């Protein structure tokens, strides 16, 4: 079976038993808890997209390992066309679920590992790429949902991993055995790890000589004994738990973006799943290759899909309020489109300027500069978009009563009159609730930090930009002489 249906994915999840804690409760079945269910349903919808004949070009790829059709979330990009379809997948999935494609980080980790394990084998004579490809073929054959764990807890940022008071602030080696390794530590902000079959764990950043114990990359089963997931909990989680009808919520089925802290308590990883072990020199480039891929997709396409939904709802809000023809409203909506499509243009450019990296690996990576520009642009742009959505949506976006209050026998008839505008009150409030989900929700900070906070993109853009060349060009046209 190379492609799972949404139902087949859900059947496997019913049997998966990860150790999950959320808001004071242990979750025995991910589909029983309203918050964890929203994450699983989003993943199921992503599987469902690959079933639709209209989406095959975007969602289905051909495995370079077996020649079989596979879900693109498990594909290593082998061409510019693949890179372009990868970013299109990020766009389509966001437009479909209005939250994370929880297989996205895993997909970009697969590409980072495909490239870097090949390079290590070339340089060091190791067998990591062969090992990684066997794992990948297994993941493709079973169409596994794979998440990616990158961000360590980090501890005191002034100190290196080995200087931390608690070494668990970074995932690290505890024991090396004949059959594998034992690891412990924390990974934070892990999108959708709970509803995945496996997680790819990468180092959180570049490492130096002497930090070999932290230089680890591996795949781990979701329910491996010793892993505990402590889920995020916030006002949106509480609202979802408290409501008796999900239709009341901003994103009824798929919810907000759900993440967890992964606690690794002496977890065993067999050698067959270890793809980097102590090679500190390659950690920085592995993370950088993951990041450039993820910045193209997360920044330049995923958030653009979200923006499409926000723009659509904002236009509806304007129509329902009867202000759609007002010139400053139209201007603001056009600005939203400009901010969004500029980022998408960067993602397309990053794909079109992609190249094989390293040469001979067969793995194609997007252009670093355009990928980083996409993410940096949307980090600010997304706030601008939700600012305008809140502006046009009006104060109602945060002052509205519950949707079901419209049906209350005592206050409902009054509320129907209060909120009737160019549209009935229920339509107006439904759109306001959707805009609340975005403009007063988790996605603003999530977009800022996801795929790395903007300072990381500024650093990369600075390193990639030839400022001397630009100075020379300016001097030449001004007629200034070189000193």
């Amino acid at each position, binding site marked *: 079976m190379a492609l799972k249906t949404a139902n087949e994915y859900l059947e496997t999840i019913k*049997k998966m038993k990860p150790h999950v804690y959320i808001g004071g409760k242990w979750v025995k079945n991910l589909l029983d808890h309203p918050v964890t269910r929203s994450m699983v349903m989003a993943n199921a919808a992503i599987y469902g997209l690959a079933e639709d004949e209209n989406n095959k070009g975007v969602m289905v790829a051909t495995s370079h390992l077996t020649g079989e059709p596979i879900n693109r979330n498990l594909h290593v990009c082998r061409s510019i066309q693949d890179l372009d379809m990868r970013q299109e997948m990020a766009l389509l999935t966001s437009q479909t679920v209005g939250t994370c494609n929880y297989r996205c980080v895993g997909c970009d980790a697969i590409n980072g590992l495909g490239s870097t394990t090949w390079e290590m084998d070339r340089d060091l004579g190791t067998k990591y790429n062969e090992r990684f490809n066997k794992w990948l073929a297994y993941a493709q054959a*079973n169409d596994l949902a794979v998440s990616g764990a990158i961000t360590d807890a980090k501890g005191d940022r002034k100190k290196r991993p080995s200087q931390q008071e608690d070494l668990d602030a970074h995932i690290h080696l505890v024991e090396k055995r004949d059959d594998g390794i034992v690891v412990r530590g924390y990974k934070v902000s892990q999108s959708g790890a709970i509803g995945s079959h496996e997680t790819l764990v990468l180092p959180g950043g570049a490492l130096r000589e002497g930090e070999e114990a932290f230089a680890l990359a591996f795949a781990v*089963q979701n*329910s*491996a004994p010793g892993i505990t997931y402590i889920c995020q909990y916030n006002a949106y989680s509480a609202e979802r738990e408290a409501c008796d009808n999900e239709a009341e919520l901003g994103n009824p089925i798929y919810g907000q973006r759900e993440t967890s802290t992964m606690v690794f308590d002496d977890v065993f990883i067999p050698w067959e799943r270890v793809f980097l072990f102590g090679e500190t020199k390659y950690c920085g480039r592995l993370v950088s290759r993951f990041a450039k891929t993820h910045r193209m997709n997360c920044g330049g396409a995923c958030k653009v899909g979200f923006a499409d939904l926000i723009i659509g709802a904002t236009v509806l809000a304007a129509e329902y309020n009867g202000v759609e023809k007002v010139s400053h409203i139209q201007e603001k909506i056009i600005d939203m489109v400009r901010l969004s499509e500029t980022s998408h243009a960067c993602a397309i450019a990053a794909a079109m300027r992609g190249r094989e990296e390293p040469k001979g690996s067969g793995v194609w990576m997007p252009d670093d500069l355009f990928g980083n520009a996409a993410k940096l642009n949307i980090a600010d742009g997304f706030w601008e978009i939700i600012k305008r959505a809140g502006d046009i949506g009006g104060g109602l976006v945060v002052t509205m009563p519950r949707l079901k209050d419209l049906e209350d026998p005592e206050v409902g008839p009054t509320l129907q009159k209060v909120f009737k505008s160019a549209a009935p009150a229920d339509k107006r409030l439904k759109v306001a609730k959707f805009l609340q989900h975005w403009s007063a929700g988790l996605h603003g900070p999530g977009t800022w930090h996801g795929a790395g906070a903007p300072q990381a993109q500024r650093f990369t853009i600075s390193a990639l930009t030839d400022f001397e060349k630009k100075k020379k060009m300016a001097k030449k046209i001004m007629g200034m002489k070189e000193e």
Partner: protein
Amino acid sequence: MKKKAKKEEASVDETGLEVISVKIGSKAPTSYKGLGGTYASFTDSCLRKQTLPGFHEKGLLAEAEPKEAGIVLFLSGKRNATQIREVMDIAMLNTGAYPDSGGKAKYIIEVKSEK
């Protein structure tokens, strides 16, 4: 016949997968296929963590005894073969092994109700 068996074994090695047989009572064993190292993960769970993958509560696994090319497990309480099969199906899936129709088993897990 002998040649065919050899070929099956070789193909399993080439793909990096391993077949694990789960034997419960007198019924025919069931095969699961997982990535190499799956059996090592499973036995680590039983012997070091004293639990079955996917079962976090203590006490389900009463005893685990390594045996040549395999392991013998004793589950707590009185359970019939169908109940044990349900538990093992979840445990194998949670260790990354999926039901498989063929292939030569490299490892055998024998499961019994508590002694």
